[in-house]
């Protein structure tokens, strides 16, 4: 399934509005904000229709999925928006992740668990904001130019050290940039290792910038956010992916490229690409396959480290200054 969907769920007393852009959306946050009520209303409306007294307005059918026979129901449900509440332990299983990956449905999951088997985006983690009977979703993690911080940033980040999630092309690019500017750079060799590379206890004045794929960093966000809250010298730069940065640089020719980058949700078929960074990699490989910029994720083509190309990629890294502060 592809596309963005606006959903309105309401009865006489309560009104929810949410917009879903990707295959996996998480809702978490404080107790008492109406998360379970939302899933219960979706369930009642899908079972009893208009006779439930609940109105669900959406271009796709919405339904809830409970623990009983979830796998059978899921394999027979197509192009729905499926809501799951935290009561089912199955949502953290590898079996559910495999079924979700193969599915042509979108999922809205209410849970505080990290769900490391699911590659969801930092942008698609929401909490419910309540004002009287009206409930809408707000992003949990504040961002400015893909720079994530517990506070709204008013200053450009000026890192002394960079840690990348990537150990291949993305790391090679940032290592080269950091070497030029006398900034230390290392790879965490995977997103789940990032939390071990920074400390919640601030030591010295060194500012560390974590660079990771925002499209799939969701499972690590809760802990990284808590680290950033205690140690303001840690910041996260979370573009969709390194390949997305290259595509955004303006140096790549591609059919309808800017339309796709402006509205990826209209181009990315969730059944084909479990998370968006895989799509952007495939798109970059396709766009560059017959040129000197031929891209490989495993090893960085040196053309990306030369003059105008390198600068164009860095220019698309908004909010970061690579010159060392005096």
């Amino acid at each position, binding site marked *: 399934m592809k596309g963005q969907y606006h959903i309105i769920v309401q009865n006489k007393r309560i009104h929810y509005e949410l917009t879903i852009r990707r295959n996996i959306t998480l809702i978490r946050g*404080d*107790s*008492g904000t109406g998360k379970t009520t939302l899933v219960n209303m979706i369930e009642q409306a899908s079972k009893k229709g208009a006779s439930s007294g609940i109105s669900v307005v959406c271009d796709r059918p919405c339904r809830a999925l409970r623990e009983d026979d979830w796998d059978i129901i899921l394999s027979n449900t197509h192009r729905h928006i499926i809501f799951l509440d*935290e009561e089912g332990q199955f949502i953290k299983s590898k079996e559910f992740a495999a079924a979700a990956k193969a599915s042509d449905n979108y999922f809205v999951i209410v849970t505080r668990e*990290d769900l490391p088997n699911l590659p969801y985006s930092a942008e698609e983690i929401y909490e419910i904001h309540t004002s009287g*009977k009206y409930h809408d979703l707000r992003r949990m993690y504040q961002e400015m130019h893909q720079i994530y911080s517990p506070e709204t940033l008013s200053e450009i980040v000026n890192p002394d050290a960079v840690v990348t999630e990537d150990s291949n092309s993305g790391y090679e690019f940032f290592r080269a940039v950091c070497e030029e500017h006398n900034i230390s750079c290392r790879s965490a060799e995977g997103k789940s290792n990032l939390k071990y590379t920074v400390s*919640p206890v601030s030591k010295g004045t060194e500012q560390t910038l974590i660079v990771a794929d925002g499209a799939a960093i969701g499972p690590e966000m809760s802990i990284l956010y808590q680290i950033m809250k*205690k140690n303001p010298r840690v910041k996260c730069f979370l573009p969709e992916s390194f390949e997305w940065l290259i595509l955004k640089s303006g140096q790549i020719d591609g059919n309808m490229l800017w339309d796709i980058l402006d509205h990826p949700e209209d181009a990315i078929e969730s059944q084909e690409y479990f998370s968006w960074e895989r799509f952007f990699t495939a798109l970059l490989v396709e766009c560059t396959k017959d040129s000197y910029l031929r891209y490989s994720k495993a090893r960085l083509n040196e053309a990306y480290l030369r003059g105008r190309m390198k600068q164009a990629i860095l220019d698309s890294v908004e909010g970061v200054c690579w010159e060392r502060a005096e």
Partner: protein
Amino acid sequence: MLKIVFGDIAGAVYHPPTYFDNQYEDEWITDPLSVEMIRDIDKSEVVSANLIQSPVLGPIPVKEISGGVKTLILMAFDTSGWIFNASACGDNCAKWIMAIGRKKDLTINLHHVMDFDGVEDFEALMVNTGKTVHSYEEYLVEAISIKER
């Protein structure tokens, strides 16, 4: 003392709201501690053991209070020996978990790193590692080192 166990363990209730709906006692609801927790978390008032006044939903039965408050009430009053999954609680429940843990030995199960930031005089035994932590920072460092969720 508050004791925290991360990950799947025997004797734990993964979804405490279901257990609560089937096991709660009327006197738990009208206890001043529950009245305070329901007021703080759900912004609702306990009218009687069977009726809660919600500002959004109107008068509701006890079974419609939030999963977080149900879990807190179980932590405070249930004596069955079950260990309750505190990942059913939002961070706005953290101070209440600590308050209950100060009054009695309370073991909770977590499947995520709960944010105890701002909880006064935080202290807990991290059962997975056997270390007692005396601040949120110590807890966070220790919790990150624990692989089980």
